């Protein structure tokens, strides 16, 4: 796919503008909705955006989560150059490109950030969703980044750690967004062949097409306390079936009882828990890869090539949306 001669990325520019965004947003300073304790943004950040009084888990951005997971050790973001396009030239209450632009302006480049990162001393690839970017919705960029993340894991023999937060498929990309569900399942299937572990952490909220695809397919699955985990959200269910749902409906603790997750883990314990699991599943290096692993490597390479040879579709879209970028003066 052709790269346009733009030399500075949108999020880079934005970071310069509001530095040190996204570390400190005004919204960070607030009182806990559960116990009303007031926290400064610094206190929030130091406690991983968990209320130290009552344990309420506030939303956290993808990059902040990477810092949490690595314990401050450096990590390297992968493929930040992938950005949403507008294949359907979609307009609802506003045009899709405008929505994307606003979301990018708020400091993220997409609803999924992928990075190479050490967690508890174990190198891995982390794929972290960001609910603040269009509700963490899964469009083509999320699908492609997750697929590349798995390819990279297979190439480098690394485990994958995924944190999900999503309202579901990104409707503005229509059926193409729907297909990202299948694409992520394909990606995890390469991990299966390569015998590489996948740890999934479900955070509030993980719903719709994300819960109904890769988020359900981790080898080990944790959920943050209070996270809503459901295919259909409570409102849709109440409207359709006229049921009155209890407040605990679909919450992490309920889903643990339902057998859907392995444990509910406090965010502050996540890095250690993930590190422990990675340690247990770590393989002695220098082992001959099983035939399945070799197959998976070939598959990852082929898949990556296949994706690159695609679409007049995306070409069309590239030009279209870049025009809107230009319009925005960048």
């Amino acid at each position, binding site marked *: 796919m052709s790269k346009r001669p733009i030399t*500075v990325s949108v999020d880079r520019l934005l970071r310069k503008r509001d530095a040190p965004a996204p570390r400190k947003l005004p919204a960070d300073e607030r009182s806990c909705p559960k116990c009303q304790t007031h926290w400064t943004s610094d206190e929030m950040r130091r406690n991983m955006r968990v209320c130290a009084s009552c344990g309420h888990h506030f939303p956290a951005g993808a990059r902040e989560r990477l810092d949490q997971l690595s314990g401050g050790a450096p990590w390297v973001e992968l493929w930040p150059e992938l950005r949403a396009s507008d294949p359907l030239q979609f307009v609802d209450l506003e045009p899709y490109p405008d929505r994307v632009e606003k979301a990018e302006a708020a400091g993220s480049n997409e609803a999924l950030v992928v990075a190479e990162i050490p967690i508890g001393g174990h190198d891995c690839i982390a794929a972290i969703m960001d609910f603040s970017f269009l509700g963490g919705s899964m469009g083509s960029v999320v699908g492609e980044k997750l697929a590349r993340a798995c390819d990279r894991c297979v190439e480098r023999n690394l485990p994958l750690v995924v944190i999900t937060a999503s309202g579901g498929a990104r409707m503005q990309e229509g059926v193409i967004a729907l297909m990202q569900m299948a694409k992520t399942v394909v990606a995890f299937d390469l991990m299966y062949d390569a015998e590489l572990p996948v740890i999934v952490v479900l955070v509030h909220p993980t719903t719709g097409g994300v819960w109904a695809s890769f988020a359900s397919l981790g080898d080990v699955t944790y959920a943050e306390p209070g996270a809503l985990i459901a295919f259909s959200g409570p409102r849709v269910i109440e409207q359709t079936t006229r049921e009155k749902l209890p407040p605990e409906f679909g919450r992490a603790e309920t889903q643990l009882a339902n057998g859907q997750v392995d444990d509910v883990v406090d965010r502050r314990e996540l890095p250690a828990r993930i590190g422990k699991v990675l340690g247990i599943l770590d393989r002695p290096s220098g082992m001959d890869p099983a035939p399945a692993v070799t197959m998976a490597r070939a598959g990852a390479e082929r898949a990556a090539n296949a994706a690159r040879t695609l679409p007049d579709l995306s070409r069309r879209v590239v030009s279209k949306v870049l025009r809107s970028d230009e319009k925005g003066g960048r």
Partner: protein
Amino acid sequence: MSVAARRGGQFVRRLAHRLGGSPETGSAIWETIQLARHQDRPYPLDYISRLFPDFEELHGDRLYGDDPAIVAGIGRGADGPMVVIGHQKGRDTAERTYRNFGMPGPEGYRKAMRVMALAEKMDLPVITLIDTPGAFPGSGAEERGQGGAIARSMQTMLRLRVPSIAVVIGEGSSGGALALGVTDRVMMLENSTYSVISPEGGAAILWRDAAKAKDAATAFQPTAANCYRWGIADVVVPEPAGGAHRDHDEAARLLGGYISRAMRELQALSPADRRRQRRDRYRRIGAYREVAVADPTAMASGVDPASTANGAGPAA
């Protein structure tokens, strides 16, 4: 010129018209949606009774229950024994209620997986017939793992050694449809639709007004022609003039021909090749931009220029 050939010619012209030039109008799309949902439109059991003189429906997921919103079984037709699975909506009120309007719970998808396991054991091709407004939104379905059931159904289909064909015969909405759609070939009937969500659902969320369904439909462009153009559908299957509801026999005959042809192509491939192509097929779908990301700091420190470093460097 035979009737069939003439019809075929008409279909090609219709499809070319839809594919060519300007996008379909909102009215045309809305009309297709009405056809896709027409209550006289053939449902899976209508196709099955015509394409598989011998068919045995199988019931139950062996775990919790039997979901009438999905029919599944083994049948023997022109191309030998096959496993057939489909969303069944129900034609009259009683049957619609019984079949939950074709909205499956986890038991439905798990029944599908159970029957796919039989296909795998017996080396039978799998045909799925997709026609659903979506998976059922209910608290029981959620408690029993609706999301995981859909995910694992896709995973199961992706791993099948046997050939598989999905046909969108009516409306294919949301993950509830795609759960049966991860196959070697995806066909769409001429007047079927495939969409991330039903127009009503999309309208309620994006327009905050379910009455804006027509606007949503116009925006989603969920027609077979568009899905074909986008590479979501591999084949568009012609319907009898006026729509499949006008002539179930002819609709089944046309579909049967397309299935036979595709099945012959697929059976010429090895299981490993089919699986590989199936993976690549879905791996490839997506529309995104790549913008150039210059990061002099990162480059200076020897990091891949297509990457950005976190707070550790001075660039943050």
